[in-house]
């Protein structure tokens, strides 16, 4: 796992969640206070550009073992190096009307080309379940205990029962629905109704591409959203990706 990190365990095999825990434990002494992201086979790991262990995104698992000891080779290809002849992505956006991601490329002569990529919520959900293998359940339990100290008991019960709860910003009046494992939905009161503004997606340290999963367990991310909303709302909006509700990434 990188040049400088080796897991210390008396077990012959560990699950991805156990590896996350062991990795976090081993990195604390080196002041990696937030732990360390763990690559998950088949998923793209995206990390904050200034995070000091950038090379972790290049790590590829070679194999894994079934519970009966059967070895399964993975042979994941390393990230391809782009050659000058290939197209370069210059812009992309989500089309609500077409429900498709539109992409503009430049070829090596600078000519623009257009491409389209369809995405849907089901694929997001399936890939998020794959990413969940890296979350220690104990971490989620501890995060929930922490959340319980930050919000009123009845809202925490709502959160445990439904996976989401809401809070209105005292500063802006914007109402937020914080959701476990999904982006936070921002709404503004408009007469008798609420007008939905967007879904705010923000992951501390990193996330797995094309999923709703961050490298931290879901309730940790809810706590991060909540604290940023309460303590630094403008930064919350500035740092989060603002997804249209029609986009699968919004998780609506």
């Amino acid at each position, binding site marked *: 796992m990188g040049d400088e990190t080796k897991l210390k365990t008396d077990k012959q095999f560990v699950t991805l969640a156990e590896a996350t825990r062991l990795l976090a434990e081993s990195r604390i002494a080196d002041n990696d206070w937030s732990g360390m992201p763990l690559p998950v086979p088949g998923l793209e790991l995206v990390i904050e550009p200034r995070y000091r262990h950038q090379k972790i995104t290049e790590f590829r698992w070679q194999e894994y073992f079934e519970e009966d000891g059967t070895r399964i080779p993975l042979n994941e290809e390393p990230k391809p190096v782009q050659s000058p002849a290939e197209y370069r992505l210059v812009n992309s956006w989500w089309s609500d009307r077409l429900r498709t991601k539109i992409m503009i490329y430049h070829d090596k002569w600078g000519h623009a080309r257009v491409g389209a990529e369809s995405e849907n919520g089901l694929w997001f959900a399936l890939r998020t379940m794959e990413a969940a293998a890296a979350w220690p359940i104990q971490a989620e339990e501890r995060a929930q205990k922490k959340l319980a100290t930050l919000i009123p008991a009845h809202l925490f019960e709502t959160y445990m029962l439904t996976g989401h709860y809401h809070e209105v910003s005292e500063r802006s009046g914007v109402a937020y629905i914080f959701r476990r494992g999904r982006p936070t939905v921002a709404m503004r009161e408009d007469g008798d109704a609420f007008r939905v503004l967007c879904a705010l997606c923000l992951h501390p340290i990193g996330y797995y591409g094309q999923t709703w999963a961050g490298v*931290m367990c879901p309730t940790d991310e809810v706590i991060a959203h909540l604290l*940023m909303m309460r303590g630094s709302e403008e930064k919350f909006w500035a740092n989060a990706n603002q997804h249209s509700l029609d986009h699968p990434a919004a998780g609506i």
Partner: protein
Amino acid sequence: MLKFHIAMGRWLDPMQENKTNLPGIDILNTGYGDFELRFDPDSPADVQRAKETITDMLKRGYAIFVEHNGKTQRVRKFDPDKNVYIIGSTPAEEIPIAETKATAVGRSAGG
């Protein structure tokens, strides 16, 4: 865990349930969920370690949040000479580290 305990000197074992309500920092952590660092404000070594940790976190872009007058505030700076979090520009907006529990969040990668 033992390794951490030794490395942190007099810092308390972070995964022990906090029975004594000591001040410190909770850090959102990939492996632990909520990782607790507590220090004894009467121990100079603990306080020194806390100062170094807070300074290091802010230098590396962690967002630190504290409760002040019933509201969550983001820490702007830390004054290691006075051992206070600075959340505004007036002396009333300085919070002694020994009197609060803070929560730290790593840099955001967007999403």
